[in-house]
């Protein structure tokens, strides 16, 4: 890679987007001024489960400043319902109205929308909407959802079991019969929510003259959102533009088209006036999207040395009341990749997903977050049972480099990963022996330290083939374009949308690297569906690999054209001995690179403004459009080590040290990658120790503010040591693998493992999250 090598792929460049954010000049949704915009506010259900008997909006309509009050009845005329019925075995088809007219299904379910001159007046008027409810028996958890005769959350279904899949590879029953021991373990992960610091919101502008809708919305996936929005408004996709301004955090919450957003768009069209909406924090916590809450049980057959002969997984997810995604989407991936870095051939799983009267689930940074905890916790259960060192049990079962590529029992192929190397490197960096000595001494003094280990194999970039194999609707491709303008300036675009990942910098490095221009001179355009190519957007950990690769390929195509033009201008038959360096064309003469006197700007000028000098048959202009479908799956891997100190008198947990060794392939910008790792680990730690969506027996949500739903602060999150041991993926254009969710997986597993190591002398095992002081005390009661 020539030219701007110190700023090209891999350079830890400070970000281009920082200046505007640091100086208060970011442009988030609420900063987009739209003259004359009205403000929407939603009336929400106070019941977990209730029949809607009637909604009286007459008084609200007369309230000061109110322009409109609508319910599900109007929305049913203006919009189509969301039908979620991909052809997946064991998945029940469901349908969701834009606003419910028959019954509400969770606390926070929207039933009416007020549109007023300002938000204060809209909220005033909401108080005047009279909704008559007939309460129904709530379904507050999975156990009651799946009990015989349970009330139905969705009355079109035969039961609350909305999805069930089972799978068997090999002959687990036979292995269990042969086993020296059968070990069982269980895992309960609680309900959480994304809690981006910027809540959801949107602003819809209907241009009646052009019959065109523009929706300003912080969306991770502008094009797929446009497709859904157009369909549900019965508009052509050419009649809708989605523009995503800067996003104040997404974490998976800003993917689906939510009912509120569709309502606002429909209202703008019906009223022929711009309408905007910003939810408050309470609404975000209660009614945006929830995540996780799954219970898993493993059974594992082992020989005397702790070698795994067979593994069984049962997992049940509490999906909440509505399906914005196919209900199998999240838990299924856990089952597909559970075995991770370990050698397992005989495997069976059962994945059940139940509907309950809670806010609907969606993907949250690491939708498969629980995976590594389940697998590592199972390994540790084996070690406890057989009296073996858990590190040794890992080594016994972990794949070696010589065994790769390795087909997991589900058929997923693991290749170009280094689990063994990151484990050994992490243990050496941590000084395991030194820790064990400290742990022994401290235990004698009543200080209970534990070391947690979590080996992570992170599914990062999902290609179309994985979606197909996993029975999930969707494509894994991404699209991009690169243009060199007549002046030589470089513009590029991709279908992804950033919410903090630094794409404007990392992708400028990729394009700049190939075209040998300074990344400062490459402008990345994101988020506008009229400008950006149709891509699948930002989700999972696909940005670097899907987005970086497509721009890499587009820039290469453009570089080839530039050099072909240069060859013609220089009177050469081929461009084979030409290259770009610092935005100039160089020629190899006698083994030496020498200047030709042609610059990128000269070539651009000819391409656009003097096209008769182009090679015969070449199109004028300098632009390249590409689409790229990644391999079925790319995997990154990491080993997380965490030292925790448990105060056995209070149940408090303090994290004393956190270290991760990671291999995520070629990185585009190491500083950004390290920052993503920090953020993911912090989300995992906060999730294990503090965050919890709490529903009571009546289905009331008890965590509707940041005083109840606790996000970790700088005090709870320890310093995080990140050690890079990257090895390239041989199937992706740049060698990248993707990353940014594995940190959550690793932190969940490592913190649980550390606390259980600390608790080992008491003969207890924590199997539930969050690790609150009362929970830990409940385990230790009578033992301390």
């Amino acid at each position, binding site marked *: 890679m020539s030219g701007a090598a110190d700023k090209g792929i891999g350079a830890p460049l400070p970000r281009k987007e920082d200046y505007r*954010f640091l*100086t208060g000049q970011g442009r988030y949704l*609420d900063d987009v001024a739209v003259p004359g915009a009205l403000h929407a506010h939603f009336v929400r259900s106070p019941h977990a489960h209730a029949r809607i008997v009637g909604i009286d909006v007459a008084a609200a309509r007369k309230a000061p400043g109110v322009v409109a009050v609508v319910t599900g009845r109007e929305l049913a005329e203006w919009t189509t319902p969301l039908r979620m019925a991909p052809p997946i075995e064991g998945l029940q088809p469901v349908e969701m109205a834009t606003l419910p007219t028959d019954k509400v299904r969770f606390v926070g379910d929207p039933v009416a929308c007020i549109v007023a001159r300002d938000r204060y007046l809209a909220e005033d008027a909401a108080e005047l909407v009279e909704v008559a409810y007939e309460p129904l028996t709530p379904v507050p958890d999975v156990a009651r959802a799946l009990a015989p005769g349970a009330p139905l959350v969705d009355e079109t279904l035969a039961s609350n079991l909305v999805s069930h899949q089972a799978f068997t590879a090999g002959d687990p029953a036979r292995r269990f019969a042969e086993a020296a021991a059968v070990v069982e373990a269980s895992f309960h992960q609680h309900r959480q929510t994304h809690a981006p610091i910027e809540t959801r919101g949107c602003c819809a502008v209907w241009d009646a003259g052009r019959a065109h809708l523009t929706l300003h919305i912080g969306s991770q996936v502008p094009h797929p959102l446009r497709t859904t929005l157009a369909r549900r408004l019965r508009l052509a996709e050419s009649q809708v533009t989605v523009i995503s301004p800067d996003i104040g955090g997404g974490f998976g919450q800003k993917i689906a088209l939510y009912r509120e957003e569709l309502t606002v768009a429909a209202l703008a069209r019906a009223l022929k006036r711009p309408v905007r909406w910003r939810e408050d924090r309470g609404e975000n916590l209660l009614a945006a999207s929830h995540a996780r809450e799954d219970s898993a049980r493993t059974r594992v057959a082992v020989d005397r040395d702790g070698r795994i002969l067979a593994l069984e997984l049962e997992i049940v997810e509490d999906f909440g009341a509505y399906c914005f995604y196919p209900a199998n989407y999240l838990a299924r991936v856990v089952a597909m990749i559970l075995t991770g870095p370990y050698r397992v051939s005989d495997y069976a799983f059962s994945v059940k997903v139940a509907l309950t009267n809670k806010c609907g689930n969606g993907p949250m940074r690491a939708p498969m977050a629980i995976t590594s905890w389940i697998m590592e916790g199972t390994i540790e259960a084996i070690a406890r049972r057989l009296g073996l060192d858990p590190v040794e049990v890992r080594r016994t079962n972990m794949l070696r480099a010589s065994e790769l590529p390795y087909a997991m029992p589900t058929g997923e192929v693991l290749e170009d990963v280094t689990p063994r190397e990151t484990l050994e490197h992490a243990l050496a960096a941590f000084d395991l022996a030194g820790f064990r000595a400290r742990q022994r001494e401290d235990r004698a003094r009543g200080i209970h330290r534990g070391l947690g280990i979590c080996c992570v194999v992170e599914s990062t970039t999902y290609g179309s083939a994985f979606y197909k194999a996993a029975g999930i609707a969707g494509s894994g491709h991404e699209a991009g374009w690169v243009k060199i303008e007549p002046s030589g300036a470089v513009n590029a675009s991709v279908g992804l949308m950033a919410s903090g990942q630094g794409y404007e910098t990392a992708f400028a490095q990729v394009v700049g690297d190939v075209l040998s221009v300074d990344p400062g001179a490459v402008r990345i355009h994101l988020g506008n569906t009229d400008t950006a190519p149709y891509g699948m957007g930002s989700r999972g950990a696909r940005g670097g690999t899907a987005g970086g690769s497509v721009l890499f390929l587009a820039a290469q195509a453009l570089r080839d054209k530039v050099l072909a033009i240069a060859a013609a201008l220089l009177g050469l038959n081929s461009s084979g001995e030409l290259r770009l360096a610092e935005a100039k064309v160089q020629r190899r003469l006698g083994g030496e690179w020498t200047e030709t006197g042609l610059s990128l700007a000269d070539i651009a000028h000819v391409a656009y403004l003097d096209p008769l000098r182009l090679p015969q048959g070449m199109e004028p202009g300098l632009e390249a459009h590409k689409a790229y479908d990644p391999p079925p799956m790319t995997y990154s891997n990491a080993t997380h080590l965490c030292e925790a100190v448990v105060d056995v008198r209070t149940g408090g947990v303090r994290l004393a040290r956190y270290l991760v060794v990671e291999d995520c392939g070629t990185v585009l910008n190491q500083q950004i990658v390290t920052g993503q790792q920090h953020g993911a680990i912090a989300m995992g730690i906060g999730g294990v120790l503090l965050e919890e969506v709490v529903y009571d027996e009546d289905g009331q949500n008890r965590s509707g503010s940041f005083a109840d739903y606790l996000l970790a602060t700088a005090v709870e999150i320890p310093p995080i040591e990140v050690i890079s041991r990257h090895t390239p993926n041989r199937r992706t254009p740049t060698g990248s693998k993707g990353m940014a969710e594995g940190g959550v997986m690793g932190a969940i597993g490592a913190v649980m493992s550390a606390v259980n190591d600390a608790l080992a002398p008491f003969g207890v095992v924590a199997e539930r999250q969050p690790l609150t002081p009362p929970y830990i005390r409940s385990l230790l009661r009578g033992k301390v």
Partner: protein
Amino acid sequence: MSESVPIVLRVNGEEHRLLVEPRRLLSDVLREDCGLTGTHVGCEHGVCGACTVLFDGRPARSCLLYAVQAQGHEVTTIEAVAAEGRLSAVQQALHEAHGLQCGFCTPGIVITMEAWLAENPNPSEAEIREALSGNLCRCTGYHNIVAAIAKAAARRAGSAA
């Protein structure tokens, strides 16, 4: 709805003559009436710290104040930091250390920590973490923010010496 009242707000050294309802939050008036959208609203209940401004030179949550309460006081927002185009010590260090990702919490952190460093020029890491604990960041895990504040403190000390 209550009657609007005329107020004079002094923000970043400039006077704004406004007609506001007494119930309107300072954060809303700064953003909507003064056009200063760098002050962000993340929770409207005083926990997240994104809306932090200086109120007579001290950090305050603009979502917990009514605009009418700010009459006769000096309000400073993020727009006044680096007004000449030169980043402050905290801003520059956050940029170098990658102490921001989505950027939504960043203005509140810059305002809070610039004011805090002025009174605590030689902080320990633990003190920085404690001082930062009133500002929630969902992206960074705080590691790089803490490093940036330490760097800014060292630089400020260096330039003062």
